[in-house]
């Protein structure tokens, strides 16, 4: 990282650019009302006015420009009472606007916005009689023109400031296809930032090493650019992505979905790793900032050099890259109706969910099924009725189905607001004459199966201690659960210590882990098609539910669970994603991987990583880093689906809790994303400190 980039990073971390933000509110509503605009037109007008209200900022030290000057609040396009009427009886996904998908950036770059505009013009002729289609296409054109006008203002200013390099680029792109790597990054910066201006969030960047590679390769081949200069441009682009993190909505700051997915295979099935794949990893490692978040697609054959480079990035403690195993993910997607070509083209959403850039309008997280709640219902119901263990499993499966149904029914009423600009960036919306809100190629819903290890441990404990060994009478267990183990310390110890636990490659516990996900998959399959013509995709993630499911959260559809039979007291957190339950004794990462490899991922394809913390002492020397690379390869060899590997020093975290001012730059992985430790809520900080450390010190 050269000095210019170092200073740029320091300026962004210090928040210098925030002084440029204006405290204005753009009024879009008045004109919408006066003109009596339709919803699509209001959405288009919003993009137009936001683009116009942006002030041009060209910092002489920057080669890639665009600095947001508008505040976080997105101007309303409806009066509250009208909005209430519009959305009455409907379900909005999170904040409302389309979020957490990935555009077809490669398509937009290669066609240029004018190429997209021609496509819209052609479609307008084809759909001449179709009022809705015509309106959508006119709105799409309106947003294209708005973005082009913004680019033109930047170009004029650049020319005036004596920056012909920038002016040349901005006069040509994003209207036309970029002629250089630099121009491609500049175009992407602008196109991407405007999506945020429209109120969308978790705006994914997809397979950047694929769609930008042709531009970089041409530059390198012709000698117009050398590798260090290319790295510098890439670094600058990455820094730019960090400028506005504080404006973006998320459960915790840092949860902003600016993810990149590297590697894997091409749509035709060939190895997709290229020099840019390596370059992104190097630049991300050297920069050590929270954005963009990196995913790396691998197979058991991925070479150790690439994995070693990735391990060096892990060593930075940013909590990425996150790995996914193509050999498991692609067949899973195909089994859920994705075409083989599209499945090979998958990228990773904000956290871990798999989606197809340009083609997926999947809502990948409509909520979580609380597996601990379902198991608790099974155990309490079964034991109270004096029934056998099979009855417990049956009640558990029924409760899982019940929870799935609640989520799916809520989303049967899903209302996605029109998104004319995002539609321009997708594959085929313009060509079909249909707004993205009406759907894309894939319109599936994802459901998390949260708290799996705790839930499986509870079943395993009851099976062994209540049924097989009969060391705990059913009534006593029920009484202990009701009392939150008060006065039942011995019984609690028995449940916690004397029963098999997930994470030890022990079938006595793992069989319930796989059973729970099979129940979830059964329930999703049984539900069938949704109103949007899609299916329900079960997954293994937990997101923030490892906290919410035990502590509750306003307006949450998911049930809250009290004390559970694996010896967990009320309020104690669950495992995040796929990890042994907090406090469960495990031998280390190999057995844990082997446990989680037993899940039938062909049926459970929404994503959700195995989460592991390695002590930072593991990364002391190159040989150990190579071993981390081998561990990642082992993850793929064993047949797991997704892995999130973190480097953690507990002493540092404790110190950061005590002296946050001294650890402003300390970054940690939270659930599917990374953020600054000191900016997290205390309960999230605690969970990170308490997470399993696979300590490997000699």
């Amino acid at each position, binding site marked *: 990282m050269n000095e210019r980039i170092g200073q740029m990073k320091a300026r962004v971390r210090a928040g210098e650019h925030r002084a440029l933000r204006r405290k204005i509110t753009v009024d879009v509503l008045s004109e919408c009302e006066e003109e009596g605009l339709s919803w699509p037109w209001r959405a288009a007008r919003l993009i137009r006015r936001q683009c116009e209200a942006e002030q041009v900022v060209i910092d002489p030290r920057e080669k890639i420009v665009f600095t947001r000057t508008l505040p976080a609040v997105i101007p309303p396009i409806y009066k509250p009472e009208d909005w209430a009427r519009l959305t009455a009886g409907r379900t909005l996904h999170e904040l409302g606007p389309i979020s957490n998908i990935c555009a077809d950036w490669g398509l937009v770059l290669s066609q240029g916005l004018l190429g997209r505009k021609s496509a819209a013009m052609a479609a307008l002729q084809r759909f001449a009689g179709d009022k809705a289609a015509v309106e959508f296409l006119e709105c799409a054109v309106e947003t294209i023109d708005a973005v082009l006008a913004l680019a033109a203002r930047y170009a004029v200013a650049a020319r005036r400031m004596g920056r012909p390099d920038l002016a040349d680029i901005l006069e040509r792109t994003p209207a036309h296809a970029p002629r250089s790597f630099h121009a491609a990054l500049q175009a992407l910066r602008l196109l991407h930032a405007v999506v945020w201006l429209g109120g969308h969030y978790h705006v994914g960047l997809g397979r950047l090493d694929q769609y930008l590679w042709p531009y970089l390769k041409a530059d390198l081949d012709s000698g117009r650019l050398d590798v260090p200069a290319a790295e510098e441009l890439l670094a600058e682009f990455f820094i730019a992505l960090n400028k506005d993190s504080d404006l973006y909505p998320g459960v915790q700051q840092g949860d902003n979905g600016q993810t990149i997915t590297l590697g894997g295979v091409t749509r035709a099935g060939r190895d997709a790793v290229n020099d840019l794949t390596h370059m992104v990893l190097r630049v991300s490692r050297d920069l050590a900032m929270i954005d963009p978040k990196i995913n790396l697609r691998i197979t058991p054959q991925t070479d150790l050099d690439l994995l070693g480079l990735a391990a060096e990035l892990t060593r930075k403690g940013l909590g990425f890259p996150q790995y996914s195993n193509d050999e498991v993910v692609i067949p899973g997607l195909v089994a859920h109706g994705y075409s083989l070509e599209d499945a090979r083209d998958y990228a990773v959403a904000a956290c871990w969910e798999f989606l197809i850039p340009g083609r997926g309008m999947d809502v990948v997280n409509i909520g979580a099924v609380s597996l601990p709640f379902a198991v608790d219902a099974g155990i309490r119901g079964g034991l109270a009725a004096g029934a056998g263990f099979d009855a417990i499993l049956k009640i558990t499966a029924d409760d899982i189905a019940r929870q799935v149904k609640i989520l799916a029914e809520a989303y049967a009423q899903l209302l996605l607001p029109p998104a004319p600009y995002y539609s321009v960036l997708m594959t085929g919306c313009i060509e079909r004459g249909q707004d993205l809100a009406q759907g894309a190629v894939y319109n599936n819903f994802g459901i998390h199966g949260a708290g799996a290890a705790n839930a499986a441990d509870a079943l395993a404990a009851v099976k062994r201690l209540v049924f097989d060994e009969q060391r705990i009478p059913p009534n006593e267990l029920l009484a202990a659960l009701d009392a939150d183990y008060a006065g039942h310390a011995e019984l609690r110890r028995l449940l916690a210590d004397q029963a098999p636990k997930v994470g030890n490659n022990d079938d006595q516990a793992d069989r319930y882990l796989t059973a729970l996900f099979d129940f979830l998959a059964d329930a999703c399959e049984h539900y069938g098609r949704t109103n949007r013509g899609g299916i329900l995709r079960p997954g293994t993630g937990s997101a923030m539910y490892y906290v919410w499911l035990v502590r509750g959260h306003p307006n949450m559809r998911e049930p809250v669970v009290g004390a559970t039979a694996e010896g967990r007291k009320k309020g104690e957190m669950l495992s995040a994603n796929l990890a042994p339950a907090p406090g469960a004794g495990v031998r280390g*990462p190999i057995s844990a991987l082997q446990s989680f490899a037993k899940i039938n991922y062909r049926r459970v394809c929404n994503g959700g990583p195995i989460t592991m913390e390695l002590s930072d002492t593991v990364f002391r020397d190159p040989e150990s880093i190579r071993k981390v690379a*081998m561990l990642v390869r082992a993850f793929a060899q064993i047949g797991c689906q997704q892995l999130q590997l973190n480097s953690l020093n507990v002493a540092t975290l404790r110190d950061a809790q005590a002296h946050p001012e001294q650890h402003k730059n300390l970054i940690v992985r939270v659930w599917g994303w990374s953020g600054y430790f000191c900016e997290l809520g205390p309960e999230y900080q605690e969970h990170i400190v308490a997470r399993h450390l*696979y300590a490997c010190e000699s």
Partner: protein
Amino acid sequence: MTTGIVFDIREFAVHDGPGIRTTVFLKGCPLHCSWCHNPEGQSSVPQVISGAGASRVAGVEYTAQALAAILNRQVAVLQANEGGVTFSGGEPLRQANFVAEVIDLLEEIHILLDTSGYGSESAMNLLLARVSMVFFDLKLIDREAHRHFTGCDNDCILRNLAVLGKSGVPFVVRVPLVPGVTDTDANLAAVAETVRGLTGLLRVDLLPYNKAAGGKYRAAGMEFKPCFDEARPLNINTGIFKKANLEVHVL
């Protein structure tokens, strides 16, 4: 059926030999090194370790079959990643029959013996016939100093080192650097002199003393009373080994 007492099984032990390894820690050690960082490994019977809030029992009795079964479940993964199984301690020579039986029950895999060398010659030979590599701890060459700081003399250690040197099994000599005790130029020179010319010697590893060593004592219900000055700076003199034409690493 032989049984043994194990105080920990730890996977992905990156500093316990080549590749991805799983280390079995055998409980019980005849030495009582003043700097020992595995105090729960010294006693040969299970004992309660009470940490903050929770307590656990260190020391589980396994039959050779049961332990081998656990290890065999991951042999393929270790094998595919240039690794294997390490037997450490405590002192594995002390449970040599058990260790040998476990090894005989394991599928084909790289085995590393991590030993203090303290044990009978027959125990040493029993295991040498079964292992692919040895980490041999060499602490002090001076007999009296050895007795003072570890509670035992080093006769059998030096004899087993010689046995190892003749066995043809590749090995690494590991020297824990304890300030003012093992890190003196005199001791390091004596170590270099002792190991020089032994066939199979791959290199010498120097392991700087870790101040966290005392951390586990209280939890194990023991008292940490080092008879050396913990704060004294270490003498990491690799030159002595280089001069003797020995490859040396500092871990």
